């Protein structure tokens, strides 16, 4: 099946990720996996759920406060976006989670795609009750064939709910990975997201978030690790639709080899959403001469009593820092790795829980060692 109607670079939101050029062929829709799948990450004590080739697998008994269910239909709001349309058109079975109280174990959802090249579409809907808290980890992995994964999630946070949502893309080298995450926050909700891209030939992860209640706060963070032949795109659209809401966006992109890293970040403050404080930062680090980093941080502000800003930097490792570390006996190789890890720390360190933190650090270590 060849693809018609994919966005070109003339479509503003796909300016740096021209799907018409990048996505030539879409494989047939996935069939049930013929072999057992193994999750890409292990977090001690996590409650694990598996979506294999788009099909929800049965799980062990859910821990207290977690209700696992199924639903039909699209999870995402209607919007003019090709990935949203495609997910809505093909998603069949939707995994739903209802979370109440303080959910203790990390909820881990592993999306594994095995076998021949397949088009995998799945979706996830999570309701977090008022005053509930949870940590949700999603991983994406599978066999190294030309899969296309189109994953969608909708996460609604109740009043004063506290959620950490982490997505780790460890898809194999030949694959294409699309993810669209939608968030709705009401009064007092606190959200932290972390998107780590360390896989796939072509990735695009989209975040659409809207603050609908006063006092809500969110940290949107991400780590875009790209290496030879990869094109990874993180696009976020954060809408402050209520007064006294705050957000911080912190994204780090590291590119090596001949690769492309794309960040598009938009903060919108709607009319009458006064006293909003929103700050976005993109930092790019280039480790090779053929690396390309693109950044489009946008502000669209319709309320006057706000403090909003963004910053974007792009550069290589600082020579003076390397010299300083070397002057203390650290070799150049070690010095460079130390600086890269220091650069990343800001987005990894706030993730709480030793087992989880260790798992995420192992992803970074893996990338740094190129395994």
């Amino acid at each position, binding site marked *: 099946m060849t693809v018609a109607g994919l966005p070109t670079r003339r479509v503003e939101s796909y300016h740096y990720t021209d799907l018409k050029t990048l996505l030539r062929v879409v494989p047939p829709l996935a069939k049930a996996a013929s072999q057992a799948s193994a999750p890409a990450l292990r977090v001690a004590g996590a409650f694990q759920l598996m979506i294999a080739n788009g099909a929800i697998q049965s799980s062990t008994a859910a821990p207290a406060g977690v209700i696992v269910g199924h639903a039909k239909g699209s999870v995402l709001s209607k919007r003019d976006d090709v990935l949203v349309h495609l997910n809505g058109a093909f998603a069949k079975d939707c995994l739903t989670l209802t979370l109440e109280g303080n959910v203790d174990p990390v909820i881990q959802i592993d999306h594994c795609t095995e076998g021949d090249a397949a088009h995998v579409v799945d979706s996830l809907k999570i309701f977090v009750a008022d005053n509930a808290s949870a940590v949700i980890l999603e991983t994406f992995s599978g066999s190294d064939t030309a899969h296309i994964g189109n994953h969608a999630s909708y996460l609604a946070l109740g009043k004063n709910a506290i959620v950490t949502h982490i997505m780790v893309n460890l898809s194999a080298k030949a694959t294409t990975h699309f993810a669209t995450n939608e968030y709705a926050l009401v009064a007092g909700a606190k959200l932290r997201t972390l998107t780590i891209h360390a896989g796939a030939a072509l990735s695009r992860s989209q975040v659409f978030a809207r603050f609908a209640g006063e006092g809500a706060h969110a940290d949107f963070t991400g780590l875009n690790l790209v*290496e*030879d032949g990869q094109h990874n795109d993180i696009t976020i659209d954060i809408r402050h639709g209520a007064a006294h809401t705050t957000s911080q966006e912190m994204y780090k992109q590291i590119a*090596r*080899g001949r690769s492309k890293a794309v960040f598009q970040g938009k903060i919108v403050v709607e009319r009458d959403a006064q006293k909003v404080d929103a700050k976005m930062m993109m930092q790019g680090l280039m*480790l*090779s001469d053929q690396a390309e980093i693109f950044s489009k941080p946008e502000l669209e502000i319709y309320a006057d009593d706000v403090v909003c800003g963004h910053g974007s930097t792009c550069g290589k490792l*600082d*020579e*003076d*820092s390397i*010299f*300083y*570390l*070397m*002057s*203390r*006996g*650290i*070799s*150049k*190789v*070690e*010095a*460079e*790795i*130390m*600086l890269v*890890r*220091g*650069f*990343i*720390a*800001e987005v*990894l*360190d706030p993730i709480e829980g030793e087992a989880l933190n*260790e798992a995420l*650090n192992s992803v970074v*270590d893996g990338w*740094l*060692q*190129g395994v």
Partner: protein
Amino acid sequence: MSSLPEINVIELLELGVVRIHNRKPGGSASIELKRPPPPASNSGSRLDVIEGRAPDKPMAATPERADKMTAPILEIRNLHARIEEREILKGVNLIIPPGKVHAIMGRNGSGKSTLSYVLAGKEDYEITEGEVLLNGQNLLEMDPSERAAAGLFQAFQYPIEIPGVATMTFLKAAMNAQRKARGEVEMSTPDFMRAVKIAGTDLQIDTGMLKRPLNVGFSGGEKKRAEVLQMALLQPKMCILDETDSGLDIDALQVVSKSINALRSVGRSMLMITHYQRLLNHIVPDVVHVFSDGKIVESGDKDLALQLEAKGYADFDGAAA
């Protein structure tokens, strides 16, 4: 952040994460040990007869004296260096024997800080002439980390801030990298923690400070104390202290100089680079040199610093011409 992972250099090289640098296995093994030429008995400035300035030209050997002398730790001969087209060091000669503390004084822009960067191996400078020996090893052939492993330590005037890297993580990495380069076993974490604790106490450095990213948000005094802590831990043979007193109030200056004095020993030499005499009241040097227009123009004992303080540098400008 957890400690550094095991690093496979070859893999990283293949991946293009890092560039190749000319590290020689075995460190100094290939470098020829040179015997220092002995000083002449009565030429050059008055200090040559004691120690300090190396003569501009090699002198005839006087074996009797040389045998009595101990081999110098640092030996700089006719060192010329430039940045872009501008020559900054114009023939520096200096010999520092073991256990001695030398001070270089000079006005801003005289090139004294350049000397410290050239010794530590900063790439921006081009060495056009001369040689530098550290314990008889050719320093100029080594990269900065090899120099450190060989025993050279520079306390920077402006320590670099490294975001995201906890001071403790950095200290451990530096310590073990040097030990590894010297073929010594790595220090265990409890031993390391103990060493840090002991060294930190005198400097009034607590574990809270060590958990913070290296130098990030440190006050001027904290930065300087962190530099001296590194010096105490790494146990170098040759310390270069570049304007260590700048940015220190009088209390901090006392803390820092007390720690530096405690590090003075038979096996460790120091070179203090300073603009003001103030520091020298706290760390009394064996020899004082006046630096002007890219070279040493006068040498003497600690009283020379007092003279300078009283008269200023103007008297010495002519000597540089």
